[in-house]
């Protein structure tokens, strides 16, 4: 009997502890103002995706929301964010989105890191006729062929990532590698969720278009505890270039096992997510990370301030200062923070003011009309690219920013450089991999 009551007490204690942890993941920030726009902000604050980049994206969005509020809000509205944790799980993301809409009565949703979450959440939010502004997740499957009305993504989509890396190879194969693009042996490996599959689809289509020799295309689970078979297969296929899309633990595992098993290449091109967190890669693998390429929207701190519209460089500087305050000791500022900050900035400084002034409100219909009228030219955002969404019937990817474009970056000596496109280059791409690298072919 004594044991039973002890057990009960213990179980109650454990349950309370678990519930406590769950509750700390959701924090509400209130603002004292007459008019407020209540925004549900959803990212992964816990789980494997948090450290894989979502936490940094969430930081970028929060910095921008705080910045806008510190400027007095938007057209008389203060931003009232309700931060929610998707816990790196699609089902939690859906539940949190519905909870925020139905119980917290938010006016709209913003954020989302994982494409695996975005795909179901976007459809659900659209069916509830609520406005959703995606800052991050890139899978084409989120929007393609779905004709969503209330979901908008200023972000670059996955196929663009995949196409750009191959375009970069096609343009540099002869000059840098001394090989015709058609002779280039290319392997595509990717995590098997919508994010990895979307980028890999773009890789494959572009590689076929340029007639490259695709020797392997394979997906794997981002939580796989062992990638040695994949590395062995790659050794057998002897690719010149590996195009890789993954999160964080799987990327470091792959690079470590590749080194230990003696896999060699002429170039490794990553596509965002884990490859966008350079500090973590360097911490794990040291200087072996040098000369790895990463395709992502540009790190906002790499852009020439003169190429941006008036006032934007100051915002970039402020985001950088707040980033350093939140993460003291950061060596390489991650593109993730700037990405979310920029995409949130577009909403707060362009879409929302128009919705309030021209359409008289912050309801989904007003926000939608305002978003469809967005017409920001190149240089008009912190990320450098413009923003324009297709009109009805113009595209099979309604809600996708048609002016977004990524860049190819290269890590050298713990610094990030823009390697492609040529117009933005801050480094002549180092290609093939120098012999000093343990991965050099």
């Amino acid at each position, binding site marked *: 009997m004594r*044991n*039973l009551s*002890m*057990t009960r007490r*213990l*179980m109650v204690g*454990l*349950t309370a*502890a*678990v519930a*406590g*942890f769950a509750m*700390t993941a959701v924090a509400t920030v209130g603002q004292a103002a007459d008019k407020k726009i209540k925004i549900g902000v959803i990212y992964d*604050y*816990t*789980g*494997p995706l*948090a*450290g*894989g980049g979502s*936490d940094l994206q969430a930081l970028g969005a929060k910095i921008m929301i705080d910045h806008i509020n510190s400027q007095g809000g938007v057209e008389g509205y203060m931003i009232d964010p309700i931060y929610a944790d998707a816990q*790196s799980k699609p089902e939690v993301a859906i539940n949190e989105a519905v909870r925020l809409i139905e119980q917290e009565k938010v006016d709209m949703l913003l954020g989302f890191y994982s494409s695996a979450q975005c795909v179901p959440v976007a459809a659900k939010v659209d069916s509830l006729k609520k406005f959703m502004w995606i800052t991050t997740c890139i899978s084409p499957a989120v929007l393609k062929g779905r004709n969503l009305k209330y979901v908008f993504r200023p972000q670059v989509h996955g196929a663009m990532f995949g196409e750009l890396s191959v375009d970069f190879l096609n343009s540099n194969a002869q000059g840098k590698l001394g090989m015709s693009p058609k002779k280039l042996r290319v392997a595509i490996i990717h995590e*098997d969720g919508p994010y990895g599959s979307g980028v890999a689809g773009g890789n494959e289509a572009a590689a076929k278009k340029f007639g490259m020799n695709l020797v392997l295309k*394979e*997906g*794997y*689970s981002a*939580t*796989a*505890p*062992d*990638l*040695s*078979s*994949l590395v*062995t*297969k790659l*050794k*057998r296929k002897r690719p010149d270039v590996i195009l890789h899309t993954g999160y*964080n*633990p799987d990327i*470091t*595992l792959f690079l*470590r*096992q590749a*080194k*230990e*098993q*003696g896999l060699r290449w002429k170039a490794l091109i990553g596509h965002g997510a884990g490859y966008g967190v350079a500090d*973590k890669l360097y*911490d*794990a*693998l*040291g200087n072996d990370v040098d000369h790895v390429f990463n395709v992502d929207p540009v790190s906002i701190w790499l852009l020439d301030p003169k190429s941006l519209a008036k006032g934007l460089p100051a915002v970039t500087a402020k985001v950088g200062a707040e980033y350093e305050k939140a993460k003291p000791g950061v060596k390489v500022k991650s593109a993730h923070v700037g990405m979310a900050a920029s995409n949130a900035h577009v909403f707060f400084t362009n879409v929302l003011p128009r919705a309030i002034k021209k359409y008289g409100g912050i309801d989904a219909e007003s926000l939608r009309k305002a978003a469809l009228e967005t017409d920001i030219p190149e240089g008009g955002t912190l990320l450098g690219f413009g923003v324009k969404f297709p009109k009805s019937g113009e595209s099979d990817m309604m809600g996708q920013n048609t002016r977004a474009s990524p860049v190819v970056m290269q890590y050298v000596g713990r610094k990030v450089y823009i390697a492609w496109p040529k117009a933005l280059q801050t480094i002549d791409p180092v290609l093939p991999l120098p012999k000093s690298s343990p991965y050099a072919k």
Partner: protein
Amino acid sequence: MFAEFTEALFSIFFVETLINGLLLGGVLALLSLGLNLIFGVIDVVWICYAEIIMLGMYTIYFLHVDGGMPLILAAACGVGVTALLGWLTHRLVIGYLLQAAPINQLLATGGLLFFFQGAAMVAFGIEFRNLGVSLGSLAVSEDIYLSWTRLLSFAIAAGVVVVLYQFLSRSYLGAAIRAISQDREIMILMGVNTKKLYLLTSAIGGGLAGLAAALLALQYDVHPFIGLSFGPITFMVCVMGGLGNMVGGFLAAFVFSELITIGGYFAELEWGYVLAFAFFIAAMFVRPEGLFARKS
């Protein structure tokens, strides 16, 4: 298709795959040893075992990277901390549940899993941390390189099995542990202090988690959710070998790992896991007590 298969089969890389399977088996065997020991003696499954490994990895990371302690010493401290955690787990939780229904025991250790994960997240954050240490690899031929870390895991797993076997079969304490695992009630009547033996077993099981942590920390990033990658597989290996049967678990680890690597070599990586799990399900139909379980 057939030509591709035969080319892959007769390639030198198939040999590498077989060896990699063996080496992965060493990792899985090491992970399953402590869990099997605890179940074999105390008859309780610690669902939270992989989370104790995770806490061991954090201990080693902080002592080595932040504290500047030599890696070997940090690993030894990691073993000590996890042994203490094992002791505490029994002293504070399992000890009160020995007579409870198995489902309650499972729920309690499941609760501990979330508690450890949550506590690690609050205390250490969600960042991925890495020792940044690589032991390099052994060049067997121009094409085949073997990871020293994995070779070490394999050797240590084999060594631990031998040491544990000797301890359980030849020492007085080992004999007492074996006896209690055979009949818990009768040993109390014979005047044996079962509580002490359970605590000792839990501490040894926890210490083995620390040993696994030392080797995993060389190969994987440390983060609060690392247990999710290994917990389910470790549990399946133990069940396939016959829960509580250390030698069975050791052998099952190699069956499991070879299926994963061979399947992943001939088809997509995920098919390796499909093959291993399908084999597990079939094995549970044919021998539900485990492939290598002794007849009771």
